[in-house]
């Protein structure tokens, strides 16, 4: 399958990319690693008239400590997130989840910013950064602004960025030794999760988010509230789907997904509780 024809421009800085997209309007798309966008274009589910290649903006590829959080450049590849010593030490849940995206070849090309901007409810990193209380930094013609992960995912493959804005950085709070777990249930090793759970816990504080349990990644805040009020792990897990709106597909019915979410949230909380 060959994508529909498009024009191609390569940006060497975020500023240049933003000015190019401002001129081109909403028929243009940013191309980072291409591992979400190119499959859609090959299936003709997306047919942008212009691709602005941001994959060479090397100053947006970094992982660095910054006070109480870790800052990750949007163009950092999954394999770098997976193996980053800073993340392994301070945000091990995110490094671990990045190691479960696709397969090694996919992780060599795909970027954390591309995955988050694509906003696929079935992807691992949107839900994981949501569970961790991340902040996304986006840049537009008038400078940068922060969007909390909780406000970012607005619908199926939709996010809160304006058409002329670009995701430039992901800020993830340090976990400070919290227990954590990443549960990914799928039929084949490299697949998207049928249901996934990213969770962390420190005493009565916790964060739990669900993969593929609605049209956006889902923050399971009722689970966290239950843990806060002293509920047992088993009881808290019963709240797993309070915020979810799962759909049935070839892999799983709504009933099955609902059941799986409760089981996986319980397992994730058990593993996070130490």
């Amino acid at each position, binding site marked *: 399958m060959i994508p529909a024809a498009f024009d191609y421009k390569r940006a060497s800085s975020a500023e240049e990319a933003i000015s190019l997209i401002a001129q081109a309007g909403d028929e243009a798309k940013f191309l980072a690693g291409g591992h979400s966008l190119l499959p859609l274009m090959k299936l003709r589910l997306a047919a942008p008239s212009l691709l602005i290649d941001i*994959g060479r903006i090397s100053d947006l590829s970094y992982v660095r400590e910054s006070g109480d959080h870790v800052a990750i450049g949007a163009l950092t590849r999954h394999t770098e997130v997976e193996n980053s010593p800073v993340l392994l030490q301070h945000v091990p849940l995110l490094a671990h989840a990045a190691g479960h995206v696709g397969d090694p070849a996919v992780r060599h*090309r795909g970027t954390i910013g591309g995955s988050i901007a694509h906003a696929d409810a079935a992807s691992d990193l949107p839900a994981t950064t949501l569970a961790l209380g991340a902040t996304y930094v986006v840049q537009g013609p008038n400078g940068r602004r922060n969007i909390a992960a909780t406000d970012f995912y607005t619908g199926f493959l939709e996010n809160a960025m304006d058409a002329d804005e670009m995701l430039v950085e992901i800020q993830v709070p340090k976990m400070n030794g919290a227990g954590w777990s990443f549960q990914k249930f799928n039929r084949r090793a490299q697949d998207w999760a049928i249901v996934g759970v990213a969770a962390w816990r420190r005493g009565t504080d916790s964060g739990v988010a669900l993969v593929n349990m609605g049209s956006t990644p889902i923050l399971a805040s009722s689970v966290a509230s239950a843990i806060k009020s002293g509920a047992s792990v088993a009881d808290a897990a019963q709240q797993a789907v309070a915020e979810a709106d799962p759909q049935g597909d070839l892999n799983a019915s709504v009933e099955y997904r609902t059941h799986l979410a409760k089981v996986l949230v319980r397992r994730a909380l058990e593993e996070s509780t130490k």
Partner: protein
Amino acid sequence: MMHGLRKWGMMTSVISEISALVGHVLSGGYTVQITVNVNGTAQTSDVEPRQLLVHYVRETLGLTGTNVGCDTSSCGACTLHVNGQSTKSCTMLAVQADGQSVTTIEGIAKGDELHPMQKAFMENHGLQCGYCTPGMVMAAIGILDENPKPTEDEVRVALEGNLCRCTGYHNIVKSILACANG
């Protein structure tokens, strides 16, 4: 309703595709010049931005050792190396490889001397029909670059992106372990 919409969407995409093709024929096609170091040799070509890397190596350069399998970045038949890292070339544009270095299955032997991984696949019968083999070998070289002495479990996990429809994984894993220990 959804079905109708989808059909209409397909029709309009077919129409836009035809008009794009006509436009291209009339204009001679919109191409971009790229230079890629392929197997140690700089190659300069004019390519359409939408040309996939796998089609660039197979059709533009005539290096047909890299196969197209699923064409959806699932099966790994098209695996080659970009800047030394295993990459699924059906999910990368040729223009993204501009200025980069690409190694295909044709580029790993030294003259008549097979790459140690090719030798290990031969000696351990790490193939049946052979279709997945170029991608398997390129993925396998990448696995040992990142983890020179893997356990059998680590090899199996690292091979998750390469499918063998003959289900001949046993000897493929054996080949990779033999190469690591060879």
